[in-house]
């Protein structure tokens, strides 16, 4: 399912200060069906607001969203409609767990939509597996799980409603490196299995290059770039730095090589597995030249 945003502007009115703040300014972008797109930007650049606009949780002040070319309209009462095809995992989603068992937690959304009990249980068994836990977790209390496990349950509860597009707002913040990699790996498998779309908001540039096909860069509420990770991180380093954004380690490595050799190595992508062997070959060659 293709999601397109056209000239989105979002104004936030703060009752306390009586000021209107423009959080998003004239954002147009297309998220291709089945893609993994990462959104990067400093804290306060509008990433989380953009995610909510994409899901329909916030209604843009100006502009419109379309899905597969179909305009998303407000409902009869003029209220925003949240698209059932777009799932959103908030930041620190574990704070939202409230049921006494994981199964009840997962059942909450589908039950509100009138699913039969059998269908709920079947789906729950399926999604708990998708997020890297097993069926024994369904009877456990969410309160007794570790931080990483809670995070997985929260993601599973969004997957219950079978979204076609999944938006995740920093899903791995605060997790250790292995926990982080394994959650992203699970999401990648889910995406591949059903031609699903993933939109990942993150500060971890190394994760961006491992998974994303495209990167959206936000700065002060404006879309600065939408391009593939390789061109972005190798060619726009200075622009990113001026926005307070770092580049991934593999890009640093390639740029360091470029600096000493005067030439850029051709690589398939900025994934570590694509970059490391090429660099090693080059550096080893240099050693033998001396020997």
């Amino acid at each position: 399912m293709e999601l397109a945003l056209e000239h989105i502007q979002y104004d936030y009115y703060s009752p306390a200060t009586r000021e209107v703040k423009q959080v998003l300014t004239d954002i147009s972008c297309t998220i291709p069906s089945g893609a993994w797109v990462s959104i990067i930007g400093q804290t306060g650049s509008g990433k989380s607001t953009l995610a909510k606009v994409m899901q329909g949780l916030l209604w843009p002040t100006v502009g419109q969203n379309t899905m597969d070319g179909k305009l998303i309209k407000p409902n009869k009462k003029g209220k925003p409609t949240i698209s059932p095809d777009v799932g959103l995992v908030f930041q620190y989603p574990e704070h939202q767990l409230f049921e006494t068992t994981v199964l009840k937690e997962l059942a909450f959304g589908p039950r509100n939509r009138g699913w039969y009990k059998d269908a709920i249980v079947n789906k729950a068994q399926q999604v708990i597996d998708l997020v890297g836990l097993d069926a024994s977790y369904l009877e456990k209390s969410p309160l007794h799980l570790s931080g990483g496990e809670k995070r997985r349950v929260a993601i599973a509860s969004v997957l219950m409603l079978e979204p076609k597009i999944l938006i995740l707002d920093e899903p791995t913040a605060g997790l250790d490196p292995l926990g982080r990699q394994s959650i992203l790996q699970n999401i990648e498998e889910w995406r591949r299995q059903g031609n699903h779309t993933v939109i990942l908001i993150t500060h971890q540039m190394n994760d961006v290059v491992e998974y994303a096909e495209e990167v959206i860069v936000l700065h002060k509420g404006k879309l600065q770039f939408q391009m593939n990770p390789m061109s972005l991180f190798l060619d726009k380093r200075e622009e990113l730095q001026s926005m307070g954004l770092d580049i991934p380690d593999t890009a640093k490595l390639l740029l360091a090589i470029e600096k000493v050799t005067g030439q850029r190595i051709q690589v398939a992508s900025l994934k570590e597995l694509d970059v490391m062997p090429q660099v090693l070959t080059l550096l080893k060659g240099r050693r033998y030249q001396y020997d």
Partner: protein
Amino acid sequence: MLCFEDVSFSYPNKKHVIQKLSFQIEKGEFVAIVGPNGSGKSTISKLADGLILPKKGRVLFQGLDTKQKENLAIIRKSIGIIFQNPEEQLITTNVFDEVIFGLENIAYPPSEMVERAEAALEKVGMLPFRETEPHKLSGGQKQRVAIAAILAMEPKLIIFDESTSMLDPDGRHQIISIMRQLHNEGITILHITHHMDEVLSATKVIVINQGQIVSTGTPLEIFHKPQMLIDCRLELPFALKLKMQMQQEEVEVPMHITDIEGMVEYLWNSR
């Protein structure tokens, strides 16, 4: 200064979180404790300040045992803790009051309070924000205010309990550089984290896993035990992965080079 002697701790009906843990932190040290989620890292900070008591062994702060109730007031006055979540630490309506709040609680003379609070905010670069409401600050700024509030109490030891893990890269850099600055000024620092790239500033690193010490040493010594780090679910900094790969080709890179640019330059230009 802080001394753990054979400390074991467990929560009710759970297996041991900490098992026979012994280490010492000397005055003026900057110690980093690293370990994966669930390794018992945060339990250590609670034990240090007597928030929880060891089931076995002793925790001593400047020779004072945390098990003795009469010691706790002195210990807690001397140890400041910065927690993980900046949202959960600030309670007042502006930055300045946040720092004053702690001073009021220790019955600090009101005539000197303002000066002390301003000096603390100045140290973390937050004085220009003295009238700002905490919710308008970024995560890194909130943590800096929390640090100022603790500095005003003149602690002897500051424990940063995963206080960088919820911040964006910019916020993380801010906090790390404040840690370095405070250490240079003579404050003893204990930094608890799972980011390996944050431990380079430390004078000593303790790696823990499943409640036990796996390794102790300088950051460089720790970085040169890659397999141990992998076994502890920790991530090698990228430059060291490159170094390891070159080592397999019997190319040695000097120990002190730990950044990507430096390593590439060395490998390309040295003979």
